[in-house]
């Protein structure tokens, strides 16, 4: 074992500090100049269908061993590349290596053309159309559906409102259902009569900066703490790269369409419609008890963005006879990114999906 710091001679310590100071300066300049940003979303893929700003991606996989394919629905407020962060640290990559045929419906960056998008546009139009595309391209009649974060909410609504949708199974990861339990993130909507229209940007959508402010309120000193830790460990290339990746994603939100924001405020937060069964989509009363396909919910016990109290009740709401809860000891991002995710969460996810698939002959 290397000698502990306390046993280093004064000369060694001085030498080490000089080296670290040089590395700090070098990395500091790189960070300030914005160079050497790690590349994200590198897994090879093809755009196979578009719908406005949304794109359906089909990830290339020469060794698909299971059917039906998996369709992933990411969040509406953050970038989808968190699911394909970097080579070696990518949920998508792991799913492909497990022999799955993987598609993702990326929402793109909404603009004024998306301001009128309502839940119905995603749940009853875009997702069914994407499922049809997936079935046609992979020559199957069913898909496994997986939703991450707010994308999970969309998949729940889709499955509940479209019982005849050709789903083999449904998986939701870090997905809230008891919205008032999201705490400071939604308190300003839930506890006040704030008119959502008053915070819309010029394009009719909730500006990403506002979404970021909401997330920042969860950890008021989080940004300062991040920078203090970065300054302390700026000599460490791996730490700097990790900081760039995670801080980059965590501050890289996309606008939330105004109409969806209004529905979220009134139906999901103020009415708590998913919990009370009072959700209405396209004039129909929608209840999660109508979901009957095999179901898996994955949540992080240390998730501060979607706390367990907001996500766990989904198990009581979903009507499936086969349903499993996977409660991991991780945070929001840690469910899909990092060593712990690759050691614990992702293998369980793959096991669930493979059990709901058939080997290709």
């Amino acid at each position: 074992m290397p000698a502990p710091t306390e046993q280093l001679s004064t000369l060694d310590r001085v030498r080490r500090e000089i080296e670290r100071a040089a590395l700090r300066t070098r990395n500091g300049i790189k960070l300030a100049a914005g160079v050497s940003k790690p590349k994200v979303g590198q897994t090879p893929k093809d755009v196979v269908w578009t719908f406005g700003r949304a794109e359906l991606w089909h990830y290339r996989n020469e060794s698909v061993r299971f059917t039906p394919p998996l369709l992933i629905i990411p969040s509406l407020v953050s970038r989808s590349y968190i699911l394909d962060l970097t080579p070696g640290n990518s949920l998508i990559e792991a799913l492909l290596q497990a022999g799955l045929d993987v598609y993702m419906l990326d929402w793109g960056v909404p603009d004024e053309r998306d301001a009128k998008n309502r839940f119905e546009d995603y749940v009853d139009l875009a997702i069914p159309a994407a499922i049809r595309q997936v079935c046609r391209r992979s020559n199957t009649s069913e898909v496994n559906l997986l939703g991450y974060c707010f994308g999970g909410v969309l998949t729940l609504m889709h499955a509940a409102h479209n019982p005849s949708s050709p789903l083999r199974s449904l998986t939701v990861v870090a997905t809230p259902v008891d919205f008032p339990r999201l705490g400071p993130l939604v308190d300003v909507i839930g506890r006040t009569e704030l008119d959502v229209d008053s915070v819309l940007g010029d394009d009719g959508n909730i500006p990403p900066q506002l979404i970021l402010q909401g997330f920042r309120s969860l950890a008021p000193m989080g940004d300062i703490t991040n920078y203090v830790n970065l300054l302390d460990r700026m000599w460490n290339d791996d730490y700097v790269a990790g900081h760039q990746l995670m801080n980059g994603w965590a501050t890289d939100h996309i606008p939330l369409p105004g109409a969806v924001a209004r529905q979220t405020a009134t139906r999901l937060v103020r009415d708590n419609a998913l919990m009370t069964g009072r959700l209405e989509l396209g004039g129909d009363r929608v209840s999660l008890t109508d979901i009957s396909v095999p179901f898996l919910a994955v949540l992080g016990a240390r998730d501060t963005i979607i706390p367990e109290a907001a996500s766990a009740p989904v198990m009581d709401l979903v009507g499936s006879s086969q349903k499993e809860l996977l409660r991991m000891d991780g945070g929001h991002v840690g469910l899909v990114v990092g060593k712990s995710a690759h050691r614990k969460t992702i293998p369980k996810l793959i096991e669930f999906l493979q059990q709901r698939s058939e080997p290709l002959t």
Partner: protein
Amino acid sequence: MKIPSWVEAYTAVQTRLEPRLQELVSTPTFSQVVAVAATLRSTVGRTVDGVNARVLHTLNLPAGTDIKRLRRQVGDLDHEVRSLRLELSRYVEEHDDAGTD
């Protein structure tokens, strides 16, 4: 590895301060203050936009609010067209499937 004293000092401050700040942002009063600030900012913005628009319209010039309105109208049209396109493709597919069967 020994933690530098300035990091230790920050951690000590953060450990004491963060729970209090979290408590503060969780209070109904904080939510009310944020809501009032957002409404106020929106009202002021609309008032300023209104004054600007009146001045520019007097000179027969389009104002930012006109452009904004046009962008939204184009956006609404795009939304309608997209929805119709999907409805149509679904109809065609169902029609084709029925024909195949």
